[in-house]
């Protein structure tokens, strides 16, 4: 987090982060909870709209662009993370959040995902993991269960799903958590921690799509879910433990699976030690020294 709650006379409420557009998600859609939790986390963190930039992918998740009042970039399908990276590098004083869908962030954008993990840049990525392509009306996603029948796989998905938590762990992310749209309170707490974490934070949100995914429902998740914070012995700094929990399929851990400290990408950038890139003066840059090299 960039400003450690410096906003002293802070009096915003979650509703202050609403735009004039009312969310057009289906009634019961898991995106509402993420929307809610995110705004509440902003308030807890005493963040103001203009301190934050959210980069969205394309999908039902990405339609959130119109509903949350912050700086916003509605990127191309799959490209939220590189845009977010560019924003952060140009102005690391901004709180940068990427909101991605499972098709968006792990399907077409999967490569950016693994490379952003290993880059450990100080941004937060929230995966709206409904295990289906929502906006394009119901095709399989990389996180869909094997056998899942969709418009593009009427005879069932033949592939093993990508497990985003395992992938993030393997790729070197330093903060990895799982939330659930059925529990806004926990989710808000997770998102808050994710934003506070220094480095790349990844939150996989089990987000029921009530319209196109009748398999991964609130009900089905509630039966599988347990909370890591209720386990006293769980050590979120232990990679192997995190991997073990991430691999579970008979039950699903929610909460913070992994949280480790590591220098962030920006730490290595002398260029912005003193001020963000965008604040550099670009008038009259002297290149005469440089030209000498070419004699």
């Amino acid at each position, binding site marked *: 987090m960039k400003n450690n709650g410096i906003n002293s006379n802070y009096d915003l409420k979650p509703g202050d982060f609403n735009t004039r557009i009312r969310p057009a998600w289906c009634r019961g859609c898991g995106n509402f909870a993420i929307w809610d939790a995110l705004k509440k986390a902003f308030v807890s963190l005493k963040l103001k709209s203009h301190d934050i930039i959210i980069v969205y992918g*394309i999908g039902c998740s990405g339609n959130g662009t119109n509903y949350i009042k912050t700086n*916003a970039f509605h*990127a*191309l399908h799959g490209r939220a993370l590189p845009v977010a990276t560019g924003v952060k590098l*140009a102005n690391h004083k901004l709180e940068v959040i990427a909101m991605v869908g499972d098709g968006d962030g792990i399907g077409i954008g999967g*490569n*950016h995902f693994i490379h952003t993990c290993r880059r450990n840049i100080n941004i937060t990525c929230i995966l709206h993991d409904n295990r289906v392509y929502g906006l394009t009306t119901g095709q399989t996603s990389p996180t869909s269960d094997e056998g899942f029948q969709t418009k593009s796989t009427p005879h069932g998905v033949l592939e093993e799903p990508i497990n985003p938590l395992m992938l993030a762990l393997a790729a070197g992310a330093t903060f990895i958590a799982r939330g659930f749209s059925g529990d806004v309170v926990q989710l808000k707490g997770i998102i808050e921690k994710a934003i506070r974490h220094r480095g790349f934070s990844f939150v996989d949100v089990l987000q029921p799509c009530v319209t196109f995914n009748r398999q991964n429902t609130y009900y089905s998740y509630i039966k599988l879910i347990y909370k890591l914070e209720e386990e006293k012995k769980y050590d979120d700094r232990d990679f192997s433990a995190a991997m073990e929990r991430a691999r579970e399929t008979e039950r699903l851990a929610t909460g913070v699976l992994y949280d480790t400290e590591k220098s962030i990408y920006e730490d290595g950038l002398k260029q912005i030690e003193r001020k963000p890139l965008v604040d550099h003066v670009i008038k009259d840059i002297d290149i005469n020294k440089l030209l000498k090299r070419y004699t």
Partner: protein
Amino acid sequence: MIIKNLNWKIAGPAGLGIMSSGQIFSKTFTRSGYNVIDGNEYPSLIQGGHNTYTVRVSSEDIYSLSENLDILVGLDKNSLSINRNAISPGGYIIYDEKEMNAAGKLKERNDITYFDLPMNEITESISVPKIMCNNVALGSSLAFTDIELDSLNSVVKDNFSMKGDKVVQSNLRAVELGFRYTKEKLGRIPFSLRRTRKEQKLLLTGNDSVFLGAVRAGCKFYAAYPMTPASSILHSFASVENEYNIIVKHAESELAVINMALGASYAGARSLLATSGGGFALMNEGLGAAAMTETPLVIVLCQRPAPATGLPTWTEQGDLLFAVHSSHGEFLRVIMAPGDPEETFYMTGEAFNLAEKYQIPVIIILDKYLSESHFSYDDLDPSKIKIERGKYIRSEEELGNDYLRYRITDDGISPRAIPGIEKGLYIANTDEHDEYGFSDDSAQNRKNMVDKRFKKINRLMKEIPEPKKYGPDKAKVTIWSWGSCKGPVLEAINMMNGKKNMINMVHFNYIYPFRVDFFEKNFYENNMNIIIENNKTAQFSKLIKMYTGKEIKTKILKYNGRQFLPEEIASAIDELI
């Protein structure tokens, strides 16, 4: 013999330092105040294959490489047989007879001199590695001219200084022995170069100029994925990242590159990216995102022969129409195609201004020939690159209370608040959007927004400079060309002695939007009009026809992966007129 031009080439298998020898040779002459143009050839292999480096030196203004060699240095047998025919009568071959045992074959031409330089013996004699043969050859080459050894020594020193004194000394020693041996054997100076003002010159490739122009223009974010022939821009930027406080990101793919640059530019930093055709193809979707969100972006497209992987290390002007029409949908862009490194420098500066003032993508097209060949200049004037950021807003004061990022204005350009301003919130939206940036798919809004974005062309057109005319204002023969063809055509015209005054050239370095007005004023249908392009399908000619209806019927095209040489052009024109 006092000469104005010296044309020298070194050739041999990869791994023998052909590239660095060539550059050293070039710099030796620019430091002595001569004009130089050089060019290299190499395959897409790290080891093996035939490498060459050609250096043309002149006491007069020159604009391109030229065909006939005065001196060829051959480091293996293969390089002799491949390049022998390019040597002018009276020219020289420097080679090592003992090593190559090539004399028999060589004698096939008796109008040139075979100069046997025992490079290998010399390196052995001073116990330096065989790879230093090229230094012996450099020293030897210099001995054919009246340039002093000191000039060469200074460049060699600079070149190897970071490898430590010992290496420098060995190299100097090899150079010296080659020089001495040759002076002795020759007993005279075959090529006395006409004196010139003794002033140091700059020696720049097109890529160097992009880099220098961009640094001067305040480019703060450079993202790239390596790709020949664009990679050297990345290397240059990376080498000064701390010195000039520029963030240089070698990203995971070209998709990442363009989207990172989009993000950085959106956040307010001048951003640049460079690639070749394949990378540019991958960036197509992102290009449209820049257009839709009205985020400035400068993209350098260093062409190489395509389609697909093509000929990675050779040259072609095959991507013009792709660049003009790239990405789905319809949007404004600027396409530049500078003719040489000097133009590249200033135009790169201007590219950032146009991108920011009009909030559009600007594409600078180079090609391998321009990207990697060196051209000498007396100087560049950085102060000519000015910073104009257009409606760039970084303070609350500049914003009203109801900020419309995409306000429909008279000139189509809307105020651009940089994120971080309390009143400046908006959505940079790849969906069609209303003036705030909210997604809006209504018919009226769509029409308004398309019109708004296109309206910028009116003001832009006034800023697009006219194409440049070279030679007499009116001429019987007009040559039309663009980009890197500039030099070869200028040289070719100069060569055409008697006919020179009948010929002029119109060179487009600002290609798009196309200056129809200029074309119509300068196109005389009854004259002979010739288009010269380094491609198969005469793409620029097609573009001209698309915008003017006029066909430039006579075409001189080359598409074998090699740039034009002036002699080819001259003889082709000669045949035509």
